[in-house]
Structures are given as C-alpha cells and as structure tokens.
C-alpha cells in the first residue's frame, strides 16, 4: 500500500490531466483546417448578439431619431428607451454600454481571426485570403458602428496578450476618429481585394461577406467622411458590376422570401434551426404589444412616429411597407387587435408565425438587412450631386422613386431639379423614406449636420456639440482605470 502511495506521489502528471471536452492548446487548433473558417464564423456570430443588433441598438439607432417613438406601454421604459427618446441618457445608461461592449467583442474576435488564420499550414492561400477578407470586413463594420456612436474610440487592431492586465489596459485609450476611419477604409479596401463577387460565391457560402458588401460599406463610410469622389466611384463600380438590382416589390424587401436576394449586399443571417440560429429578440421587441390573432405578439418598442408617416408622399408604397397599424390585418392574415398599446409598428421587423420560418417568437428567421442596393443608388446620387453631376444623381434617385410608386401612375413624380441644394434635400428625403426603420436615420441626421435642428423640431432635447455622439460607458472608463476620456457634455 505504502509503495503505491509512493508511486502516486511521484506521478507528476496526476495534477495535469488533459481537460475533458476542451480543446487543449493553441497548437492542436491548427491541425484541423476547418478551424480557420471557424475563427471567422465566431465574428459573424457576434452579429446575432443581443447587445449588437437588438434592443440597445434599436434604441440608439432608431428611437433616438424622428422616425420612431419609444413605443410599448408608457410605463415600460425598456430600461432606458425613454432616455434615448428624450436625450436624457448618461454615462451609466445601459444601451450605449451594451452597444460598445458588443461591438468591441466583435473587434476582438476579428483580431483573433486575422492573427490566427495565417498560422494554418493546411489551408490554401486563396481560402486564407478570403477568410481574412471576411474578418476585415466585419471588423470594419464593428468599427463603423463604434465611430458613428462614440466618435473617438480605442483603435484595437491586434490581439492583446493575456500576460498582464496592465498591458491590456494600456491600450484602452481613445484614438482620433480619423485614425479609426483610416483603419476602416484600409480594412474594407483590403477586404474588397480579397473577397469574391456575390455571383462567384457558391450556395455553400451564401451569407458571407462579398466584394460587393465590402465596396458598398466602404462607399457608405466615404459618404460619412464626405469623400464624394470615392463614394461615387465605389457605387459606380457596384452598379456597373451588374451583381445587384432593386427588388421590384418594396413590401417584400424584409420578408424571408427575398433574403440574400438580388438587392442584398449584406445581411445578418437567421435560420429556422433552433435556439441561437438567429438574432434573438430582434423581431419580438418591436412587434405589436397586445392581442394578435394568428401571430406572435411583442414588446411594442420602436413604434414608427406620426412624423415618419406624414413624411410619405401620397401613393408611396413604402409607407405601408414600413408601418402596420392597430386593427390591421397583416400580409400573412394575422390580425392586430385595435387594443394594442401603440398605433403603429415596424413592419420591417415583423416576422410571420405562419408564413415564415421561426424557432419561436424570440428566435425568428428574420434576417437583418445591413446594406442593400437601394442605398447604393442613393449614395451614388448624393455623391454625384455633391460633385456637381446633377443628371447622374437624378438618374440614381429616380430609379429608387420608380419602385416606390408600386406600378401606379400619377404619384411620386420624378425629381427633376438640378439645383444642388434642392437636390440634396430631395435625396435626403428619399433616404428617409427608403431606409426608414433600417437603423440609419439618426446617424444620417448627424452626418448631414442637421440633427439638432430636425430633432428639436420633433420635440427632443438634442444639445448641439453633445448629442452627436453617445457617452463613453462609465463602466468602461472604470475598466480603463480612467484612461478613456468622456465625450464633452456628459
């Protein structure tokens, strides 16, 4: 017995068994070529995150704007959606903290993918190039969200070693907005050179980032930076590629039937597979609150505003495409009770219980459209107008208006003005109607430099010089040990 005890004591491995059900070390990861793709998949997964695209994002990108009200019951503040609606949020408000957190988790995953994919020796260079392109596209997307929301943000473009907390915290300082934009442009340019055309991607890769997605996002980024020449060139390239065209029926744009369709440049994917296969809650938080016969009910947030409703010209099919009403019978036969909490709801977030695939009301099959051809045309129009090419601008603009007529005549006449100021306003108005409820309006108003004017007219407490960006979350300032500086006014 004592001998056995002695043997046991000498067995050094006794305290170092292989951990069960855990990939043991970094080396063994690289043996399996599938893992290269998995590193990128983890970046895509972050798109489904609650903090990235759901409640907080809906609040920050939409409820803040004049397109939507808080919605829901008056007493249900959705934690802080009242603060977003009224511009009373502070550094401790949850939504900006969640959006910051979720996007930086995404940045971290992209950094891991970009750093690790080159280490695979049994993956072809082509595939590696493409995977790194996808990761860079996604990193650029996360940073575009961050820079739009917070202005100057930490530029994290490498994996931080775990060796010391000090080193990690040392990198947690804000970089100027311009540096972040430079990184985004660099990433997207690189991604566009690595990624295939949409048509070159087989069905197996449907849903992954394409060259068109990278170019399109880059065009939007250049639009935000007022780099008109680049914006126009990029959108021209997309238009000329022949890869994309407008979906004829606007109302179908956000349905399952048109997912990854002709108009789509990039979408967040959701499938009818089960729990976790989609963006949990995106549809539910925005669906009608109250009795729905033949359909899921929801929390009723992000209710389209009366102002948005009134902004549509007579005969514009996009109004009915974007808004459904209390008492309405929806496209799938579901009947919204007239007793529901709010007069209007976001049709783009509606997911049919009977006509579309859903795991349940929470995990729906609803893809979130991030970038589509309709916006490419409008970017093209805006850039052309700013560059003094009114006819070119009108061409793109009127292509968008053509669909909004829904085949009817005598409504929504073509825009004909060549006055740059008038045309700019026409394009901006078109963006609002076309991209309503697509998480664009607030950032668009800030980009256009008229957020204060428009939103104050809408009764909001927008303070110029403060509310163009959201506060840096206080918990992140604490984590940075004070190195992150707060935005002015907060």
């Amino acid at each position: 017995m004592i001998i056995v005890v002695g043997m046991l004591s000498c067995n050094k491995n006794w305290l170092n068994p292989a951990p069960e059900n855990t990939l043991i070390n970094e080396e063994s990861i690289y043996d399996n070529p599938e893992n290269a793709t998995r590193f990128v998949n983890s970046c895509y997964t972050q798109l489904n995150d609650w903090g990235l695209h759901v409640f907080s994002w809906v609040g920050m990108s939409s409820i803040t704007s004049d397109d939507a009200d808080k919605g829901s019951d008056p007493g249900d503040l959705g934690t802080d959606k009242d603060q977003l609606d009224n511009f009373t949020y502070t550094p401790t408000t949850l939504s900006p903290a969640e959006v910051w957190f979720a996007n930086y988790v995404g940045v971290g995953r992209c950094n891991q993918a970009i750093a690790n994919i080159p280490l695979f020796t049994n993956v072809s260079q082509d595939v590696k190039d493409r995977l790194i392109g996808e990761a860079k596209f996604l990193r650029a997307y996360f940073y575009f969200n961050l820079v739009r929301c917070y202005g100057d943000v930490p530029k994290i473009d490498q994996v931080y070693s775990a060796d010391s907390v000090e080193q990690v915290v040392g990198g947690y300082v804000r970089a100027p907005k311009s540096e972040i934009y430079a990184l985004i442009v660099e990433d997207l340019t690189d991604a566009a050179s690595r990624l295939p055309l949409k048509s070159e991607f087989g069905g197996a890769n449907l849903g992954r980032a394409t060259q068109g997605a990278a170019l399109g996002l880059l065009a939007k980024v250049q639009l935000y930076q007022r780099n008109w020449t680049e914006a126009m060139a990029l959108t021209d390239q997309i238009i000329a590629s022949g890869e994309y065209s407008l979906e004829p029926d606007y109302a179908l744009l956000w349905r399952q039937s048109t997912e990854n369709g002709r108009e789509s440049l990039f979408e967040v994917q959701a499938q009818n597979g089960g729990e976790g296969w989609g963006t949990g809650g995106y549809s539910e938080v925005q669906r009608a609150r109250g009795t729905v016969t033949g359909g899921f009910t929801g929390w009723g947030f992000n209710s389209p505003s009366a102002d948005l409703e009134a902004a549509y010209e007579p005969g514009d099919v996009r109004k009915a495409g974007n808004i459904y009403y209390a008492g309405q019978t929806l496209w799938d036969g579901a009947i919204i009770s007239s007793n529901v909490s709010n007069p209007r709801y976001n049709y783009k977030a509606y997911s049919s219980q009977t006509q579309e695939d859903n795991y349940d009301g929470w995990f729906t099959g609803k893809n979130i459209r991030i970038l589509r051809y309709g916006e490419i045309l409008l970017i093209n129009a805006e850039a052309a107008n700013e560059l003094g090419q009114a006819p070119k601008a009108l061409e793109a603009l009127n292509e968008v208006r053509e669909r909004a007529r829904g085949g009817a005549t005598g409504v929504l006449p073509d825009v004909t003005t060549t006055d740059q100021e008038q045309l700019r306003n026409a394009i901006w108005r078109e963006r609002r109607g076309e991209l309503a409820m697509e998480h664009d309006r607030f950032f668009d108003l800030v980009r256009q430099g008229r957020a204060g004017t428009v939103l104050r007219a809408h009764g909001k407490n927008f303070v110029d010089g403060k509310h163009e960006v959201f506060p840096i979350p206080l918990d992140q300032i604490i984590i940075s040990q004070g190195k992150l500086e707060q935005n002015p006014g907060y």
Partner: protein
Amino acid sequence: MMKINYAYRLVVPLIRRCGFLLVPFLMAISAMAYPQHKLTVTLENAELARLFRIIQQETNYQFIYSNEDLAGAPLITVRAVDEPIERILAESFKGTGLNYRISDHTIIVSKPAVPLQREVTGRVTSVQGEPLEAVTVTVKGTAVATTSDAQGNYRISVPPDGQVLVFTSIGFEPLEIPLNARALVNAQMQEVVSDLDEVVVIGYGTQTRKQVTGAISSVSGSQITKQPVLTPAQGLQGLTPGVQIIASGQPGTQPRVQIRGLNTILTNENPLYVVDGVLTEDITNVNNADVVSVDVLKDGAAAIYGSRAANGVVLITTRQGATGKVKVNLDTYTGFRQMINKVQMADSRFYAIYTDEARAYDNQAPIFDPDTIVHNTDWYDEISRNGLLQNHNVTLSGGSEDVKYLFSAGYFGDEGILKGADFSRISLRSNNEFRIADFLKFGNVLNVAVSKTDNKPNSAFTDAYRAGSSAPVRFPDGNYGFISELSVANPVAALELANDFSNSQRYQGNVFGELTLLPGLTFRSAWGFDRTTGDSQNYIPVYGYGIFTHPISELFVGENKRFYWVWDNILNYNRQFGDHSLSAMVGHTAERDRGRGLIIRATNVPAERHLWYISQGDPTVTVDPADVTGFNLQRRSLFGRVNYSFLDKYNLSGVLRRDGSSAFPENQQWGTFYSVAGSWIISSERFMENASWIDYLKLRAGYAKLGNDGISRLVNNELSQLLAITQTSPYGFPNGLASGITFDQIKDALATWEATEGVDAGLEFGLLDSRLTGEVSYYNKVTNAYIRVPTPPFVDPNGILSPAADVRNRGVELALGWNERNNEQFNYRLGFNVTLNRNNVDEVRGGIDLPEGGLGNGEITTRTIEGQPIGSFWVYQVDGIYQTQAEIDGSPHFEGTMPGDFRYTDINNDGSLDSRDRIYVGSYQPRFYYGVNGGFTWKQLDFSIDCYGNAGNKVYNGKKGVRFGNDNIEASREARWTPSNTNTTEPRASNSIPKPSTYFVESGSFFRINNITLGYTLPQSFISRAAMSNARIFVTAQNPVISKRFSGFSPELPGSNAMNSGIELSVYPTLATYMVGVNINFK
C-alpha cells in the same frame, strides 16, 4: 476527656451508617447518670422525645437518637406506675417502627435495620424508548455495579445502605434514581447534548470534547431523525450557533448552509460534507435514519480539510452495529405538507378595476367590465395541494466481538405542495466491520440511493402571482384560460404541460483496513467512492392557447454520470508519557472526480411516453447536441495533525495540509493550509477548587489559514489553462449552422485558492452540577475572494477571474443549555443559541462594483462594493408620493411620472435621477440568527420544541417589483393612491415597470417554530406480548408557526449565489408539515 471519647465511640459508627451528622443529636448527649431504674410516667398522645426527656431527668439513662428518626414516629400514650424503665420503653416503642438498644446507661434509638441485600431489576431505554445495551448500573457510593443486556434489562443486588442507582453509558447523560425501597426501577436515558467525554469526530480521527481546541458543534442523529426533512443539513437549523440554514421546501433539494457568515462572492458558500470519509457537496442520498451524529467543524477546527475547509466542514457519521443479538428497528412516519403564509391576491373584481385604472393612466382603453366578470380564480389554490409525505425505515443490526453489521432500507416520498411535483428515494445501507485479528480489522460502508423526481416548474408560483384572477382555469370549450392582454401563461397549464422527469442512482461508500503496528500506532487505508448516474426526459407537447403556442413537440433526453474516488492512507499515533499525552497523525490522500453529461433534442416526437426517444423524432431535423459537458478534477494532498496535552489541562494542536489540485495553473497547483490552537481547562486548576459551582471552564483560541477551491467548480477545468478556446454560438448561414471558435478567455496567471485567514477564540463552561452548560465564541476572518474583474470586451468579455476582493466576517456566538436530568419521572432541558455576524467587503481592488440581483425585467437590485456586505440592496429612496403635477415638475423625476407615483430622493442633489442616486439599504445577511430549543420527558411522554429565527436582514419583494403590464396584484393594493384617496403610502395603479426602491425592500426577520414533537412510549406490559421491546408513537408539526414581517411568501430565499440572495421571485413558499409516526424495536 472520658466523656468525649465515650461519645465519639458511639457517634462515629452512627455517622458512618446514617450518613449524616446532626447538631441536635449531639446536643442530646449527656453523660450524667443516676442509679435509679423504676419510674412513674403518665403521658397522653405525646411525642417519644417527651418520654426521653422525662427519663433523662428522672434517671441516669441517656438517649442517643436522631430527630429525623423520631420525626415520623406516632404519638404515644404511657401510663406507668413505678415500672422498670425497660418495660416502659418496651411498651412505648411498640408500633413506632423504631428500635432501641440499652447499652450500659445509654439508650440508642434507631430505625429498624434494613435487610442485608436485596434484588432490584428494571429496564433501561432511551428517551425514544429504544432499549439500551451495556449501560453501567452502579449503586451510588459503593462498588456494586452491573450492565444492561441487549433488551436493556438489568438486575443488581443492592447492599443494605444502598439508596440511589446511577446509570451511565457513553453518549448518554448520567442518570441517578433514588430507590425508595422499590424492587423495580426503570430508567430512561437522555442522549448527551454536550458532554465533555463525548467523542467528537474531527476529520480523519476523533477526540473527546474536552481535548478539542477548535470550534466544533455536534448534533446527535436523534435530533435530526425526528424532523421530516430530506437531508441532515436541514435538520441542523437552530440547533447550533454559527450555522445558518436557508432552506426552501422544494422536494428533493438540500438547503444552503452558511457557517459563520459568507466567505465567498462567486463560488459555492456551502460547507464541505464528509459522509463516512467521502467528500461530497450533495447529501440528498443520505437517509437521516442512518445518521448517528453530525459534527460541524467551524473555522480552524476544519483545517485538516485544507483547501476545502474555508466554509466549514460537516461530518456525517452513519450507524454501526453493536455487539449483541440481531436488533430490528422499524421507524415510520406519514404526514402531509401544506403551504402557509399564502399572500392574499386581488379577487377578479378588484383585479379588473385596478387593471383598467392603470390602463386609463396610460390612455389605454379598458379591457374589463367589472360587473360582467364571471370567474374568480385563486391560482395558488389551483396549483397547490396538501402533499403527502412518508418515510419508512427498517434497520437490522447486531454483531459479535469480531463482526459487526448493520443493514437498513428506507423509503422517502415527498409530494411537495406544487401539484405533480414529486420526489421519492429508496435508500439501502450496509455497514460492516470485521476483526480478523487483534491487530487487524476491515470494514465497509455502502449506501445505495435511487431517486426519482417529477419536476414541475417553480415559475408556476410566479405565474400564479401574476395571472389575472378573472381568467378561468379552463374555458367552457376546454382550452386553458388566459387574458389576452396579459403575457402570463396559465399556471395550471404550465404544470399540466410539464413532463420533466429525472432519475438518479447513487452508490456511495468506502472500504477500509486498519492495522495496529505497535501499541498506539495504527495504519488505516480507506478507499471511498461516489458513483452517480442520472437520466432525464423532458417532453414539451404541442399546445396552443392564446399567445402561448408550441407548434412542434420537443423532447430533451439527458444522461450524466460521475465517478469520484478518494483514497486515504493514514498513520496514527497515540501515547501517554506520564503527565504528557501525545497524538499525532500523518496522511496522504488522492482524489479523482470525473464526469460527463449530454442533453440532446428531437422534435415531432409522439406524445406517448414509451415513444420518448430521439429516434422517434423528425429525422430531417438535426439532432442538436444542446449541451455536452465533461470534467475531470484530480487532487493530491498531504496532511498531518499533532495534539499535545499536559496534565489534561493544557492542550495544543497543530494542523498542516498541503493540497494539490489540477484545477489551477501549473505553478499555482499547490497550496498550504494550517491551524494552530490551544486550550486551557481552567477548572482543573487548583485555584478553582473553591469555586464549587463551576464544574468546567475551558478557554480556547486559535489561528488558521483555510482554502476554498470552489472556483474550480465554477469554471470547470478552464482555470488550469491561461488561455482557453471558446466555442462561440453557431451562426445560421442559409447553407446550415456554422460553429465558431475564438480565443477569448484569458486567465489570471496567479489564480489559486480563495484563502480565509483568521482567529477563533472561545470560552466553554459547565456550571451548577453541569446543568448549565454553554459556550461563547469570537471569530474574525478575512477571505481573499474571487470576483470577475472586468476587462475590455475585446480581451475577454467575461472578465478575468481573480481573487481581487477581501471579505471580512466577524462575529460572536453564544450557546446556553440547561439540563435537569436527575429525576426519574420528569426531565427537562432548555437551550438557546445566537450568532451575531458582521459581513463586510473590505476591499475590491480596482474599486469596481459588482451589480447583481437582476429581476428579469432589466432592473438590478444589488451591488457588492467596498464597505458594504456582499449583495447589498441598492435602490432609490422613496420620499413620499406625488400629489400634483406641479410637485413633479418642481423636482427631479423619472419619465412618465404622474401624481400618485413615488417621489425619489435626489441623493446627490444634481437635479436629476440616475443610478448615482441609489442608496444601500442592507443585505440579505442577518445581523444575528438564533435557536431556542426545549423539551421534557414525563413518565411515558416526551415532548420537544425547536425554534429558529433571524433578524436584522433585508429581503426584496421581487414579485411586486416585476410587472409586465396588466398583471394581477395583491389584495393590499386596495389602499392605493387615487385622486380621492391621497393619504396613503401605496402608489397609484400602474402598469409601469417599477424602479427598484426602498418600497420593495422589507425586513427579513422572522421567528419560526421549526419542530414540535410529542411522543408516547407504550408500557412494557402492553407491548411485550407483541414481541416488541419498545414502541413509541409520536406526532410532529414541522414549521407550524412562523412570525415574520415580510409581506411575501417566505423570507428564506437562498438565491443562485451570494449576490442574488434574498430576492423573492419564483420562490417555493414556506411549508408546514404535520405527521404521525411510530418507532418500534422488535425483540
């Protein structure tokens, strides 16, 4: 001189014989003598003493007598005329029952001599009526002794001067019974509650209580078995200081146990359980009837368990057979459980009025017409029942010098109060010991427990709270009732649609050998094991009512298994050298804990239970490996203990343990834990001899460093690697699900055990013939506790686990007991104990705060922060109710505030309300908790009562604090603010999600009668015909009375961890249990 010597010669034998010395007796001695022998005396109904005085006056005769002997003598009448003294005396003493003897001129009066020897027989039983074997019966003041046989019977020859029998047995209170000339004396012995010679289990060995240098509380099995509870831990509540038990009544669960405060923030706060040497966290497999003792090691006393000692150690010892012929015991009880403290909900009329009133504030149309409502459903009545509880045990035991055996079989069935939620357990035990030679013995302990649980969702309690009382259980068409404007499932449907079954089989025990190498030196090797297998089936059928639909049936099938073993090798040495006594122990132990589990899902599985297989599901749907787990933890430890005593007065002990665990990074795998302690038995000192009222007085003090490796359980094996690969959620590409990986879990390279260091000191005493015993203890300790230190999200979104907080617990314990037991007919005992504890987060490095206590509606309620107890409630302060819009406009307020809403204090006076205006208003941790116990035995009856309470803590009424709109409310909301009822503290009707505020924080203090038991032991004459040696019937009420201030269901709210405790959401309500039972021992 002569006279004195003469008297002395007479007196001394008298003293010896009668055992007392009386001053009046001495005064009665006179040596004067007169030569006269005849006397004339006339006395009518006079005392004998009067005659004696006359004779002494008239003659030279002297009397020696005791006043006491004469006291009972009848009055005499004497009519003597010049008669000899001898004759007068002979006449006078007739019928007095007294003897006299004339010696010279001295007349010695005495009581008649008793017979030289006489036989006394009787039977010795425990309070519960079980016969007690091998009880020593001694005639007090003599060397005459005997022992009782297996049936408890004894026979003893009492010498003539024997007056009192003394009964002694290890583990029982000594008992003295005066004979009073009887020939049959039955004795009922009480088990020791706190006896200095009692053997205390201390981990890898035992000690007598006197030698103990640390804080150990012991509870006998009988105090546990009388309670209708599943685990021995639950039975400890209120019986010992320093041990806080937070139990819920849910079938099949064990309570949370907290010893001397909360020592950890993130990890398991429960003590380590050691069942017959097997270390475990789950004791739901142990049958209470098998438990002989439970010893609780607190602080330094637990040091021998090193890295798992910081939360204390609870040692559970099961019964062994005793020498003698086979004994068969039957213990059984049956009763029912009942919900108490039900909160009165609004009836349907008030519900309708309230809901419409709340909607009107939000400009929403009414949904009810209060005058046309037909249903009035009490959802709590609909989901609850009086649950049947039963427990039946048979034990066979016996043995010879060489073989001792015990076999027991038990059934425990608990239906619980939630309809359909059942738990049952069959347990078998076989404990055996074989002595092969004088120097070698072997033994085994084997416990098999098979349990079956029918799980019903506790959320039904929450749903019952919320569901509108105007909805019927079922509509006339048979569908489940609901209110379409309310997103709460039908609570009855929730129960009826749940098909969630789990089974577990557990085999736990050990085999051991013990070898005596030299006198005092033994080697023991024990291999303990714990094997668990389990399986579960959870079937969710197709259903649909209102918005609650489940269009596709789903089946989840789970399997798990775990095998744990521990191998102890221990060398023990005990030796006495003159006044020095030494005991030393060294040991080595190795452990492995390994397991795996799997839950898989299928859809479209038929509803018949025999078809609940994954293969019966839709083959086109991927079988989803929803949850695959696996773990392997290996440990190795070296430990030793030295106890040294000098003159039995000065005791010193030292414990050292080195623990190695695979859970930690390679350079951090070993930890060293220790304790040093000493005790001084002051009462054994010469200078204490005069303090006769002090029987026992001991001072003890010690210092210890203990560990808690619970963090390794929290993060599984991951902590052992600095960088781990995370499998992220999959992504649903149109082509199919794509799995993802990333590196995002960085670890603190210095991660290691949570260490607790501190002092423990105590004073133990026994006063007034040890009838009053007690103990006062003080402790003060600091734990270096793990928290999740947040890191930037691109590094590790979960933060780094790091021991970055210091938590202090300090407190005082007091235990007092009064035991009156020297009476055959009536014994009683009273006990009281109280623990005062202060918990404080001394430091959180980096100054971060840890928010927790989420209500599930986006609101959090607690924070753990420097300078406050763990999990302090952190809320807005209510400062009255707004009466007018002008008041609202003139003060900081939240969006949507209306007259009738709460006004909150702008704590930082910055003109707006945000989280910086929240205040700390206490935590769930009580300032003190206490137990009050009492009992008596009177003839055949026994009675006991045990109470428990705590005070000074807070609870959060989460049920009230969560609203989703149009929910039901409590009946007390009738007092709400309305424009016509403004003088109230209840806010207006509202569908708003309430802000966490002081309104929802209530006192958590309560006092409860845990157990009342009344037993009756049937007379021998009655049961002996039925081949029984003992039979007792009893009735018990468990938790019959609770006095609390909390308006909710139960102030006992364990929560998922320390930071989430004390929030009432889906809690199991408090239960009362009423039962009857019998204990029978067969001949």
